[in-house]
């Protein structure tokens, strides 16, 4: 499965991997090393990340993280 994910990410030039904070980040980091992607935390609930106590803060945090990751890939 990991090999297939890596293959698809390379074929489609996918450069960002989203993980829930409680998931195993190391698997995402293994895939990121093979594909040159960036791993970012994508919590579903407010409060899971610092400075993201409300729903709006959580969404702002997520959008900002994705934008920074995609911008860094350019």
């Amino acid at each position, binding site marked *: 499965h990991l090999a297939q994910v*890596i*293959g698809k990410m390379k074929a489609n030039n996918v450069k960002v991997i989203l993980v829930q*904070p409680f998931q*195993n980040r190391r698997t995402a*980091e293994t895939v990121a*090393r*093979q594909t040159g992607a960036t791993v970012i935390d994508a919590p579903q609930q407010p409060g899971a990340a610092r400075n993201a106590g409300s729903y709006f803060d959580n969404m702002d945090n997520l959008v900002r993280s994705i934008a920074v990751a995609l911008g860094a890939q350019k």
Partner: protein
Amino acid sequence: MTTDWQVAWEVMKWPFVASLLFPPLLVYLGLHVVKREVIFVDLALAQVATLGTCVALLMGYHFDDRPTFWISLAVTFLGAAFFSWSRSTKKTPVPQEAIIGITFVVAAAGVILLLSRVAGGKEELEHLLTGDILNVTKGEVGQRLLVFVALGAFYGAFHRRFVLISSDPERAFAERVSVRLWDFLFYAAFALVVVSFVRLAGVLLTFAYLIVPAVCGTMLAQDWMKRLVIGWVVAVSASVLGLWASYSMDLPTGAAIVVAAGVLLAIVGVFTAVRSG
């Protein structure tokens, strides 16, 4: 264009290298454990190491933080001291294996209790049990290798002393060898090996690497060196089979290696039964 095999090799190469480099010391320790007839001491120590990790998680540290390692090691040293203190050459109503089994169960229950207070505790529990051998990196292999080489040199330097204490503690006492001190040194170094490896491989795979190849070696040979070589061959074979099964059937890697080791043990068991029958 990269082929599937190239991608698989890129993902699997460091787990494969780890499975070549780490088993020799693990098999050596397993031979001692089998000789001492305290099979579950490594499982108990691995679980105590996990308990130490959970203490660190509850204190707010993350799994990969440096203090987590030291807290886990400190707790495991306490376990090592307890096991060396509880060993007696005199016949006692309560065998040491019972003490070890109880320690394992209490440590395992302690892990569940502590992780019930940690966000994402259920996922962490599975992670600690099954490990993460598939995601091991070059840096982690290098760090563990330094620890394993240093400890391998320590055990090698005092090999005769440790063999005497493992196989004939009464004679060691009679020769005025400080058995409790050397037992503690044995278990303390063992604790460092277990803590280093269980963070990569988890409790189940650590136990499998320690015991299964050593049992196979013990069943097939009398000499320590031959048992060590046979054990290493079994460990590497189980790793290769497990990695192949994990890739081709999309299975959890650590569990696949443990089952492969069990299958090899069954084959060795049948072979020895036929040979002696």
